[in-house]
């Protein structure tokens, strides 16, 4: 295999953003650099003639680089490219033939040359290049056959400032570069759904901050570590995440004492949303993100979602709202959070989950119950906010 010195990064959607294009490209360059920080070696990420290139300046591990680039939202394809100086057709043809020779051990394949001439003053046009190069390749490797409709090897040859030769396109994650669509606050639990929700929102270019509620001694130090580990997995894609860890025990016990048991989850979630929204507004996040999915549990019926939602003024984004559990699991497996999510550290702290929770709460009903919280809830929420533990999580 060829020891590639450069990767051509292809981006889709962001190519069509008109005058703002450079903002998106710059964000993408920044995110690529960030992802490559995790990889051993020196890399130069740069824009040239409306393309983004990653040049390798040292020894590196090919698979590690590809894996890192696959976590950068906005990348549609990663193309390992052979790049050389333009020394005229003869030289180019020789190098193209070399490329094919080295890249494909089994020559019993069909191919097509796809030339693009960005340098309009070049002596040959792209049709001529296609034809001539095709001929040279056939002469060098007689087992190869031309197939212009469905070739096994599509050989791209670009005549630009340099000459680019590439034939391999590795799919990236798509989406938009993080940092181009504002920030949102993810309510992160230790489950399967919320990391997936965070990933999906982040994929649209949204930067993430997160809030986790723990309730020692009802939840353990390992459960908390698990959430930090999950944030770290999401951060591989989203970039660093500021994680707010809120001690919810006192608030939870108070709600338990004051409110009907079957409404506990709803009322607790309403308070959690309020606290998360507080942190969101404080740091300029423009919405909340949750892993809720319709009817998955009692607090995720449309009635429950509605009653919970009404405590917020910020929009609440629920990217997996219409996903079946298995669909969520599939994404979790893909992004690598599943194994961590299913660790059993949530122990058996079902103390605060009613055996028969309400599934169709109404606004009036919940408001009536919450009147019993009036005496202390503001104070408790204030304390919970003030005693927040902040952890900066990086991949």
């Amino acid at each position: 295999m060829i020891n590639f010195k450069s990767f051509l990064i292809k981006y889709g959607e962001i190519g069509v953003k008109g005058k703002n294009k450079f903002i998106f490209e710059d964000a993408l360059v920044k995110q690529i650099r960030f992802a490559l920080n995790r990889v051993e070696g020196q890399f130069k990420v740069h824009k040239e003639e409306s393309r983004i290139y990653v040049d390798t300046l040292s020894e590196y591990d090919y698979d590690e680089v590809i894996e890192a680039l696959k976590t950068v939202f906005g990348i549609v394809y990663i193309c390992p490219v052979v790049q050389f100086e333009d020394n005229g057709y003869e030289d180019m043809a020789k190098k193209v033939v070399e490329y094919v020779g080295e890249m494909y051990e089994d020559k019993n394949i069909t191919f097509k040359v796809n030339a693009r001439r960005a340098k309009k003053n070049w002596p040959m046009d792209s049709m001529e290049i296609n034809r001539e190069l095709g001929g040279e390749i056939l002469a060098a490797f007689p087992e190869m056959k031309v197939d212009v409709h469905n070739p096994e090897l599509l050989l791209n040859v670009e005549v630009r400032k340099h000459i680019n030769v590439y034939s391999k396109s590795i799919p990236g994650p798509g989406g938009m570069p993080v940092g181009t669509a504002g920030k949102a606050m993810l309510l992160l639990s230790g489950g399967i759904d919320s990391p997936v929700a965070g990933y999906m929102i982040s994929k649209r270019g949204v930067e993430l901050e997160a809030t986790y509620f723990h309730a020692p001694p009802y939840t353990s130090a390992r459960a908390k570590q698990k959430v930090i580990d999950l944030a770290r997995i999401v951060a591989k894609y989203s970039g660093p995440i500021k994680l707010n860890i809120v001690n919810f025990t006192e608030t939870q016990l108070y709600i338990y004492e004051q409110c009907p048991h079957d409404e506990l989850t709803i009322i607790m979630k309403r308070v959690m949303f309020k606290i998360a929204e507080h942190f969101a507004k404080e740091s300029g996040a423009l919405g909340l993100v949750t892993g809720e999915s319709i009817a998955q549990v009692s607090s995720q019926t449309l009635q429950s979602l509605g009653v919970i939602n009404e405590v917020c003024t910020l929009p609440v984004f629920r990217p997996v709202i219409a996903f079946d559990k298995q669909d969520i699991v599939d994404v979790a497996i893909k992004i690598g959070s599943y194994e961590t999510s299913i660790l059993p550290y949530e122990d058996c702290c079902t103390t605060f989950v009613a055996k028969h929770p309400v599934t169709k709460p109404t606004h009036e009903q919940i408001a009536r119950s919450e009147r019993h919280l009036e005496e202390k809830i503001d104070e408790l929420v204030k304390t919970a906010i003030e005693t927040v533990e902040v952890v900066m999580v990086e991949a």
Partner: protein
Amino acid sequence: MIAYLDNSATTKVLDSVKDIMIKVMNEDFGNPSSLHLKGVDAEKYIKDAKENIAKILKVKEGEIFFTSGGTESNNMALIGFAMANKRAGNHIITSGIEHASILNTAKFLEEQGFRVSYIPVDKDGVIDMDKLKAEVCEDTILVSVMHVNNEIGSIQPIEEIVKVVKAKNSNVKVHVDAIQSFGKLTIQPKKIGVDMLSVSGHKIHGPKGSGFLYIAEGVKVKPILIGGGQEKGMRSGTQNVPAIAGLGVAAKENYSDFAGKQAKMIELKDYFIDRVSNIPNVKINSKKGMEGAPHIISVSFIGVRSEVMLHTLEEYDIFISAGSACSSNKKAHVSDTLKGIGLSNEELDSTVRFSLSYLSTKEEVDYCIDTIEKNIEMLRKYVRK
């Protein structure tokens, strides 16, 4: 103040153990199999450790085989023995409350075609002698029982078990998992006719990754680790000299003034049980005095989930174990021992284990019980409705 009351999980390494280990690593780091002087120096630590242990058990040095710990010793005793003796018979007996390194190894042997009987225990966690006797047959080759149960501290009457088993079939060999009893009880396998005995180093203030299996002369066992033939071919792999040296020192220290150490632990255990009995609505699953192990106290605090108790105490720097995973948690493993002694689901969910060592103090116990008393009412208020 810190109260580490989880000594059946693991113990703090003694300074004297640490010192000898560092010396081995810094100075006498040779491979005991090497012919040169460095090798000879290293080998001496192994000989010393064997000598210490052989003296304690009153067995021959050549009957001690160092392993990586309790699990390996138990694996070697069951698998190695079964492989070497399969022509003599196909039947193995163990109890229903063994450690996972016995139970899961027995299951593995079942997959390999052996028949395994699991003898149940009574409400005190002692195996049913009539059922044991009934199970021994012509085909039986091995009986494996633990000396002290790790969860409740019940003691099996090993001497009686050996007699009953061998009276019915004199060819049967007996293996004892002594991982929780070594260092806590007097153990003399040869005297009572025990053929194999497993011990782990980190339960007696020695290092993790250390342990041994006693194999009485003449008992056939096949090695389960094969290679360069160390430990007389029974356990290949360059010996973990620092760990072995540490284990030897820990064992020697544990059994010097042993009567005093044991009496201290029993006194502390009884004091603990007396105090915890004053808390309303608790069930003590361990026995006072010499009727139970000197160091294990299993208690069910009815109405408080074991994890919640554990994490509450952890906030006060008190460290204990949960007795069992929650019985309602389908994913987690519910304790066979606690089920075996007939605890109800409510009791299962609320069982925790406190475990002492000869270094534990009355102050630690008082601090622990005081903390429980201070918190238990609050903890009981919040239960799932």
